[in-house]
């Protein structure tokens, strides 16, 4: 029987964390809604199983996405995670092949060197020792990076590392001690017996030359075991909980579970999956343009985990979705933030240790009290029957050039349309939703839905991406919802709209709500290619910037908004385009105030390019209503 008391801390820690992981998973599973439970069962025992395993390998061990966006940071994460995994795997094989028995208890492979000090002298054994040393060196190189990163955050390319709590610090220290103490313990043992490979062997013989290696080894084996045990026991209280949680998250996500608009177990799983890698902090324009450095998603996740009142963090965000796109763990950051907004202010509560190990989910998100309807003054009326409804939206009413261009385009394309909010309409409801006021938003949604339904239209065209997103996602309407860029593209392609080529250089700024928010990236660019020379910017599609004017942020000051807008305008006009094009009235207004380059919505550019059917207009009855006449160029 190979046993020594020093393995006890490790054993306690290991069995604790294993049991804990099982219990916590069962709790999460139980908390899932019924359909989500079925999804997860199907996902786990079905086709997606292989996909999840592959993802776990690529993302949780290799950290492919972090490697892509930040190689040095990726290497650090990979060497620790993948290296540790290899060390355990090959350690187990080593103990199995070279040890006294097969199928050993985990501690025998972890402390293999202690129990088999004579191992690794020659032949295959030596080659294997070389491999184990190589893996240890791999981990230690990553650890060195991590230590340097903690003290100078420039090294791994991050501007700001996340701040730590006391427990995190203890856990971090024990994590840092694990591998150096293993190195020293193995080296001393190797030194005493003259074994070990290039790392432990050489270090061991050097140390043994002036230190009593035999006596020194034992305390380091204790340290090794203690740091492992401490790390395992503290893990659920710290950000390192992301390691086991991410496995659960990957299975849940691949089974098709989504955040949705209700707080639930999946929300909690995602929040605990955040590794505080800080990539979202680097992606955030509030951070690098406006100097707001405490609200990024990493801090939101941390605040929720620590049961703090996160309402200030939750509301001070553009909801641009840049962090969401970049998060290597794939946490649905924007929907999670929406959940925190709906909750409004939360009470900060002191937590017992037990509560910290098993957080009470319901205390995090209390329901907002119900209230009387707010918009009783809105009166329904009978809108004219029509095929296409044009809904300009509030923001478009502040940019009349867009509105007028759209009227010109609708006229020229010859569809039967009705300008629903020509005389000013009711807000679409999305700004209220972004402010976490869903009940109020529902009132406006109902009002608008009834009008649209009564008009009998089959298509709804809007100029505002904010309206577009809410019409698409939160209105239960039986109409095709199109952003004007999509509508214009359709009209060009079926020949209803004839356009000149304008010989202008254009760069395109993709609005957040239209691009990342609704996945409409190509249509506006396609339209622009019909009428002008489209230049690439360094910020295409998913990587596009936020103009800074977003209605998502209720807290930001006008000065900070304009700082962002100036940075963005400068980036997008680097190649001196004739026009900086966008497809959102709010982006247009925000960017126009920040640059001397002409900023125009694509509808204005298209309206400029319309070939006027001089004769046709007289011969045929125009289908649309001719109210305003051509030339809306400004």
């Amino acid at each position, binding site marked *: 029987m190979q046993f020594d008391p020093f393995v006890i801390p490790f054993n306690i820690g290991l069995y604790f964390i294993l049991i804990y992981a099982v219990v916590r998973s069962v709790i999460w599973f139980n908390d899932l809604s019924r359909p989500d439970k079925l999804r997860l069962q199907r996902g786990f025992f079905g086709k997606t199983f292989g996909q999840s395993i592959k993802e776990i390998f690529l993302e949780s061990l290799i950290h492919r996405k972090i490697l892509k966006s930040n190689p040095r940071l990726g290497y650090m994460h990979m060497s620790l995670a993948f290296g540790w995994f290899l060390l355990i795997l090959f350690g187990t094989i080593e103990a199995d092949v070279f040890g006294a028995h097969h199928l050993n208890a985990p501690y025998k492979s972890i402390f293999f060197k202690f129990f088999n000090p004579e191992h690794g002298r020659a032949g295959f054994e030596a080659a294997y020792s070389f491999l184990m040393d190589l893996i240890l060196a791999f981990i230690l190189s990553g650890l060195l990076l991590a230590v340097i990163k903690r003290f100078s955050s420039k090294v791994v390319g991050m501007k700001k590392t996340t701040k730590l709590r006391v427990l995190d610090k203890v856990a971090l220290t024990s994590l840092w001690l694990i591998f150096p103490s293993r190195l020293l313990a193995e080296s001393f043992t190797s030194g005493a017996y003259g074994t070990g490979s290039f790392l432990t062997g050489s270090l061991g013989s050097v140390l043994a030359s002036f230190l009593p290696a035999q006596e020194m080894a034992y305390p380091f084996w204790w340290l090794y075991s203690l740091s492992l045990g401490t790390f395992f026991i503290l893990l659920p209280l710290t950000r390192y909980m992301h390691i086991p949680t991410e496995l659960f998250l990957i299975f849940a996500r691949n089974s098709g579970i989504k955040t949705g608009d209700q707080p639930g177990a999946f929300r909690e799983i995602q929040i605990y999956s955040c590794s505080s890698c800080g990539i979202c902090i680097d992606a955030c324009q509030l951070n690098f343009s406006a100097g707001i450095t405490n609200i990024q998603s990493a801090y939101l996740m941390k605040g929720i985990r620590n049961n703090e009142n996160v309402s200030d963090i939750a509301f001070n965000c553009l909801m641009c979705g840049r962090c969401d796109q970049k998060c290597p763990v794939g946490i649905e950051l924007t929907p999670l933030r929406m959940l925190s907004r709906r909750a409004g202010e939360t009470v900060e509560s002191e937590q017992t240790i037990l509560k910290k190990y098993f957080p009470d989910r319901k205390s995090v998100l209390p329901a907002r009290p119900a209230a009387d309807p*707010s918009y009783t003054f809105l009166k329904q009326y009978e809108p004219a029957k029509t095929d296409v409804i044009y809904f300009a939206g509030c923001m478009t*009413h502040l940019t009349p050039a867009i509105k007028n261009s759209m009227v010109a385009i609708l006229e020229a394309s010859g569809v039967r349309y009705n300008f629903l909010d020509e005389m*000013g309409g*009711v807000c679409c409801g999305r700004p209220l939703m972004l*402010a976490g006021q869903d009940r109020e938003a529902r009132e*406006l949604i109902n009002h608008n839905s009834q009008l649209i339904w009564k008009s009998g239209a089959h298509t709804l065209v809007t100029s505002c991406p904010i309206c577009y997103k809410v019409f698409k996602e939160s209105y239960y309407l039986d109409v095709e919802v199109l952003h004007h860029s999509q509508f214009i593209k359709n009209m060009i392609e079926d020949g209803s709209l004839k356009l000149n080529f304008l010989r202008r250089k254009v760069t395109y700024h993709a609005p957040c709500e239209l691009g990342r928010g609704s996945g409409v990236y190509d249509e506006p660019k396609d339209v622009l290619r019909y009428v002008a020379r489209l230049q690439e910017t360094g910020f295409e599609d998913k990587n596009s910037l936020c103009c800074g004017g977003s209605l998502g942020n*209720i*807290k930001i000051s*006008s000065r900070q908004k304009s700082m962002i807008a100036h940075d963005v305008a400068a980036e997008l006009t680097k190649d001196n385009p004739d026009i900086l094009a966008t497809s959102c009235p709010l982006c247009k207004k925000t960017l126009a105030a920040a640059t001397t380059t002409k900023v125009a919505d694509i509808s204005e550019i298209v309206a400029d390019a319309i070939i006027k059917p001089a004769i046709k207009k007289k011969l045929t009855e125009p289908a649309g209503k001719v109210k305003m006449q051509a030339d809306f160029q400004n």
Partner: protein
Amino acid sequence: MDRFGFSISKGRQIDYDANSRHIAEFISEREPSFRVCIECGCCSATCTTGNFTSFSLRELQILMKRGENEKVRENIKKCMLCGKCTLVCPRGVNTRNVVTLARQAFQKFPANAV
């Protein structure tokens, strides 16, 4: 008096002893730009809600600053947070946050403390 076709208007003064500025203070603590409003009325002129009813953000801001909160309590709910006022405000007042904070304040202090 009536015979002459006019009447003396009712006495009207801002009574800071009776009025309470705690709502206004709640807002300006959290949204400093509330203080720099010059009551120009651009926000009311562009207002989406103002298109349908006599709601005026300019008026409500003045009333809160005076501490005449009762009219504001009911009316502030009517704003749709559409954001047009923020865009037109010449002083850069973050009006959406002003409205949101006012709503919060009225929820926090159910009765007008005198």
